[in-house]
């Protein structure tokens, strides 16, 4: 087995590309990222490791713009992310220049996934060690979309998804609690999902909301704290409601 895991361009006898799978491991070690699609709002929420006191937190934005109507968050190797993001941003403008229309979310996702795939089929390179969550509104129809790509170069559309640390538990939570939401409800669902695996508090989460009219809006720490507080009270109320009938019986 060890013989088949060095070079990316070599299949193992049982059909694995080990470098790609190791890249997925790198993603699993990255910070948690959640994306939720609503009817008129799409939300990205990313776990923020505690910032060292001397670090300027504004220089480590984890949710970035690819164009006015498309945003991206990722989990995995941040340096690799920078390269992919730059190429995607150039492609967005190049497309606009040749086709005279903004890119669709599906197009730029396909482009990023295509780039990731290319690096799994060439000599002397390694795959990008990150999975991305791409959100945006279609410039023609205005429908919201959420896509995910991974190091193997596959991509698909999602109603809600998570990647990075503990993404399985977040996805389980989303599967249990997802319903079509809009506006503030979508935002709360995303934050609730992330809070399943992340310590509560505005300084541990980075949240951005995209709407058709206002584009991408990064939330301030205070705003996040307020919503987290709202979620906590709702949770406490739900717990109390559950406990109340049983106490009456005894």
């Amino acid at each position, binding site marked *: 087995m060890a013989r088949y895991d060095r070079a990316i361009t070599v299949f193992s006898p049982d059909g694995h590309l080990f470098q790609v799978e190791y890249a997925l491991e790198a993603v699993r070690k990255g910070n948690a990222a959640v994306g939720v699609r609503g009817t008129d709002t799409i939300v990205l929420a990313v776990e923020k490791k505690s910032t060292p006191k001397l670090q300027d937190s504004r220089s480590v934005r984890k949710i970035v713009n690819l164009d006015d109507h498309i945003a991206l968050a990722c989990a995995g190797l941040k340096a690799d992310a920078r390269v992919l993001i730059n190429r995607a941003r150039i492609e967005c403008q190049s497309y606009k220049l040749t086709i*005279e229309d903004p890119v669709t979310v599906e197009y730029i996702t396909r482009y990023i996934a295509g780039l990731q795939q290319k690096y799994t089929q060439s000599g002397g390179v390694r795959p990008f060690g990150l999975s991305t969550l791409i959100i945006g509104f279609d410039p023609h129809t205005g429908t919201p979309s959420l896509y995910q790509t991974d190091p193997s170069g596959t991509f698909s559309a999602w109603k809600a998804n998570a990647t990075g640390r503990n993404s399985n538990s977040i996805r389980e939570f989303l599967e249990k609690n997802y319903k079509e939401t809009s506006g503030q409800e979508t935002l709360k669902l995303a934050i609730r999902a992330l809070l399943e695996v992340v310590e509560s508090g505005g300084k541990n989460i980075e949240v951005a909301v995209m709407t058709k009219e206002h584009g991408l809006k990064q939330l301030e720490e205070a705003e996040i704290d307020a919503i987290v507080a709202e979620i906590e009270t709702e949770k406490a109320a739900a717990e109390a409601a559950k406990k109340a009938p049983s106490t009456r019986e005894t």
Partner: protein
Amino acid sequence: MMKIDFSGLDPAAPIKGRTDELCGDILATPSFALPTTHDFDGFQKAAVQMVKPAKGTTTLAFIFKDGVMVAADSRASMGGYISSQSVKKIIEINPYMLGTMAGGAADCQFWHRNLGIKCRLHELANKRRISVAGASKMLSNILYSYRGMGLSVGTMIAGWDEKGPGLYYVDSEGGRLKGTRFSVGSGSPYAYGVLDSGYRFDLSVEEAAELARRAIYHATFRDGASGGVASVYHVGPNGWKKLSGDDVGELHYMYYPVEPTSVEQEMTEVSVA
């Protein structure tokens, strides 16, 4: 040795960046070596000059309230020799887009066909039709990359997309203009005269077709390099439709029928005395 860049003939690759070293031979574009003359610039100039007179044609297109009207003649001339009276100068790129031919016939036919392929590939990849703006830009980018190499193309791309009727003029210098009225070719001054004086945005389809037909006819009357058949096409929301193809000789007698004149001196049979 220089090589011509044929990347315009690529199937639409998802990655557009050329600086990617990973492509290597996989996406290598077909190319052939250029002639090894002493004076390549002179050779280029001579090649361009050889093709230049061939923009002997009249084509026109205009946008009106019901879409785009496209019309052209059908004469091909080589200097003073009329090589064909039945050339199809309106090229069907796809069911909702037309291109006109002026300049080198082979150049126009080939690159329009190539554009049709690229439009279809765009549709398949993106699940939506390409806009007229996008298609015309693809063509003009390709023509720009061959700038100075002797291509002779003066074309109009007419179509109907989500934004409504679209009309662009694209030429082999690499120029691209968006507009509502264009005429291209040696007969265009004559066509413009008729077209500009008769044009109104709110023409009906029949009126617009008649205007286009008359403009082509008048151009063929005065311009020796235009003639044959005046074809008229209409591009509407459901695609293009050929409306008519009338021989310009017959059109002449339709517009200017021969009046029977009174005879001044009649020749009568003189009976043999």
